[in-house]
């Protein structure tokens, strides 16, 4: 199996397996103590995504020492990992067996952990075709507010017993409980991958993508930077070669998807552009949003990055009008900003607060990380 345009970190020959260290008992003790003293905890994995949310004040509870792959059976397509395991270590172990996390999570730093990946729920360029982080979570062990380590979901593909607490944790940023361990569905890496670029306008690109999207083509990446449409094809050698021939264009540089995923393209750089960075999540066919600024389109139109001085309220109003929402991201603020996420409606706020009150009655888990009072 060859990976001529590999976007995942390959296992270094000297790479060691993730250290196997079960720190659950310490974590449980810390949570019990915090619950007893009503001490807020700031949950931290590798501290690579601190910018993605609101600042939390509390005692730091680090998951970083809780590491190791608990169970990996490639034939079952399931891996179970402790939350503090480095994402890179997990990906190296999977790559060794020709498998991967299909949702292509970003790292943002070498220290990124599996628990942080699940808590933040950020998926990479393959997301519209492969699914999101939550789509691949099969089960979790959670540490609850009363210091108990409980299991939800499991290591099987289909499991509808009880409420889906595991998927609820994805994107909740640790506000409902401590993610201790996670089981994922994993998939084979594609046999072949090719990246091409086609020079065309934004609107032409969006029209082509809509057309191609209705056909079973092996597209797994589609981004437009204002001038160029970048396409990734993945699948068997035959389908990739034939589709490449059909779509035309030129071979693209290999590292594009990694740099897009890690927000390392010049577009995201503060040196290149000092205007605020926004992420708009919209229906992929939503018309162009009338904003002043520059746009970089990912997810075939469903994720649109903007550099714009447009006021936050206007930004959010436009996103809502287009059927989605807007997130303000400031990569230079490692502890987050006051209002990153689109405010929830009053009725949704009510149920978020009720759920928070039920699962974290003392308010000790990352209080205020997503929204004030959550």
């Amino acid at each position, binding site marked *: 199996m060859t990976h001529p345009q590999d976007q995942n970190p390959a296992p270094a020959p000297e790479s060691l397996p993730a250290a196997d260290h079960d720190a659950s008992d310490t974590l449980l003790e810390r949570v019990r103590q915090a619950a007893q003293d009503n001490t807020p905890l700031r949950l931290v994995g590798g501290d690579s995504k601190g910018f993605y949310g609101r600042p939390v004040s509390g005692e730091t509870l680090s998951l970083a020492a809780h590491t190791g792959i608990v169970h990996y059976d490639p034939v079952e397509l399931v891996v179970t990992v402790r939350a503090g395991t480095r994402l890179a270590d997990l990906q190296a172990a999977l790559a060794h067996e*020709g498998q991967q996390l299909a949702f292509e999570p970003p790292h943002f730093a070498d220290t990124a952990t599996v628990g942080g990946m699940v808590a933040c729920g950020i998926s990479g360029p393959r997301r519209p075709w492969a699914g999101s982080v939550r789509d691949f979570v099969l089960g979790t062990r959670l540490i609850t507010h009363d210091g108990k380590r*409980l299991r939800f979901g*499991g290591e099987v593909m289909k499991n509808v017993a009880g409420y*889906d*607490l595991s998927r609820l944790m994805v994107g909740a940023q640790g506000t409902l409980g401590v993610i201790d361990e996670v089981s994922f569905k994993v998939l084979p890496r594609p046999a072949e991958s090719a990246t091409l670029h086609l020079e065309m306008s934004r609107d032409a690109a969006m029209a082509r993508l809509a057309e191609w999207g209705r056909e079973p083509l*092996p597209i797994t990446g589609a981004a437009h930077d204002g001038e160029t449409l970048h396409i990734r094809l993945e699948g068997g050698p035959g389908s990739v070669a034939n589709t490449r021939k059909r779509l035309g264009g030129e071979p693209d540089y290999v590292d594009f998807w990694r740099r897009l995923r890690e927000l390392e393209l010049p577009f995201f750089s503060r040196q290149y552009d000092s205007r605020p960075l926004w992420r708009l999540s919209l229906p992929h066919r939503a018309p162009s949003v009338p904003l002043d600024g520059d746009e970089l389109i990912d997810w075939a139109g469903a994720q649109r990055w903007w550099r714009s001085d447009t006021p936050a309220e206007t930004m959010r109003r436009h996103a809502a009008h287009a059927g989605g929402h807007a997130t303000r991201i400031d990569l230079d603020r490692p502890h987050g900003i006051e209002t990153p996420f689109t*405010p929830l409606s009053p009725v949704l706020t009510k149920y978020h607060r009720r759920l928070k009150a039920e699962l974290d009655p003392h308010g000790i888990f990352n209080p205020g990380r997503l929204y004030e009072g959550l």
Partner: protein
Amino acid sequence: MNILFDERLDGTLPTVDKDALLTHLTAHLPGMTLLHREEDLRPFECDGLSAYRVLPMLVALPDTLEQVETLLGICHAQGVPVVTRGAGTGLSGGALPLERGVLLVMSRFSRILDIDPEARTARVQPGVRNLAISEAAAPHGLYYAPDPSSQIACSIGGNVAENAGGVHCLKYGLTVHNVLAVNILTIEGEHITLGSEALDAPGFDLLALFTGSEGMLGVITEITVKLLPKPEVAKVLMASFDDVEKAGKAVGDIIAAGIIPGGLEMMDKLAIQAAEDFVKAGYPVDADAILLCELDGVEDDVHADCETVRGVLEAAGAIDIRLARDDAERATFWAGRKAAFPAVGRMSPDYYCMDGTIPRRELPRVLKGIAELSATHGLRVANVFHAGDGNMHPLILFDANAPGELALAEEVGGKILELCVEVGGSITGEHGVGREKINQMCAQFNPDEITVFHAVKAAFDPRGLLNPGKNIPTLARCAEFGAMHVHQGQLPHPELPRF
């Protein structure tokens, strides 16, 4: 075993004056169909788990969302339990009525509101049949992927409530992977949209939480699903084995070869014979097991994958491998599998369909355990198996008219599910807990975990008016159920041999 609502174990139900409620509802909802006479209620006394029947107090058949909202408002104000029902095809008794509750039937919400081929989405009302979505999308070359075997009749609202699966889950996912957004009405009468036509929404992933929540957290009023382009080509290989274990191993070998089949189904000897007798699919009746492996996608890749899979099957010891020559033969191969349940039904007056999932590597052990249970209890068991994703459907054959046989079948079924939990699996892969598996929940989850489930319920329905008694057992029930507690594969006495 009696699974009907038991106030001693399931909590007290409010006492409702039927006549007063009927008068009140009629006054406030003059245009809504409200059934209250026994002969009108009778057709609604059970869902697909027909061994259990309860006459609901009232059946409401609203046509408009305003009616649903008013109905819920009144039931909430007066403390009346509400059981929501779609097409009533569920196999776990999730829509089993309560004699002191209102059955809210959503079947009249049967309009496809919008098919958007550009966006590749369908916006539908909850009573739309699963298959109707794919039929409406077909002219655009699109389809809705989850295909439970009841897809001709089951409603999409019920699919979301149960997180329904089908034969293509390993590659295309369950309902939860194919729904973009749902509108719900809370028991307090609030309209909420969960999810979005965008690929994510701010806040908690309540869409995931509601999917599979069995009508316990809210009433689904509208659903937006994702549509997929139809695969260019699909091929089916049928492999016969003289040993179930070899067939089980072949499943793992196919996946180890880096191939994710669109469908990968296994049937054992009894199921093969039943299906062949019924539909003449050309199955090898002497084989101990067959595998049906469907490979779909782009033509070039499918041809290459077919060759790879053929090689894997040969190496795994298949005694015969046949590639369906054309779509007609492919349909014939599938016809036997799809008719497996009714085919088994012809061999026995009644059958009881189970729905456990296991890690695939445990298949030989679980099949052996099932065979032993079958022998010791004197009931035949046919096995059909969504082999790719480890979802077993043992069919226990019995005669409901023979005294004690239903109870015996349930006992065997319960033990099979406990065996699934023991090997690290789940008591339900796609049928839901409903009322049927309420006791086995106590085997899969410990009291602390069940307490967390109750906390989730309390956030959305603190008075417990939505579908009481389903999905999550009370701690009192688990205490009483008192079965050997097998949890997370940890047996109380692991040193003792079992099965």
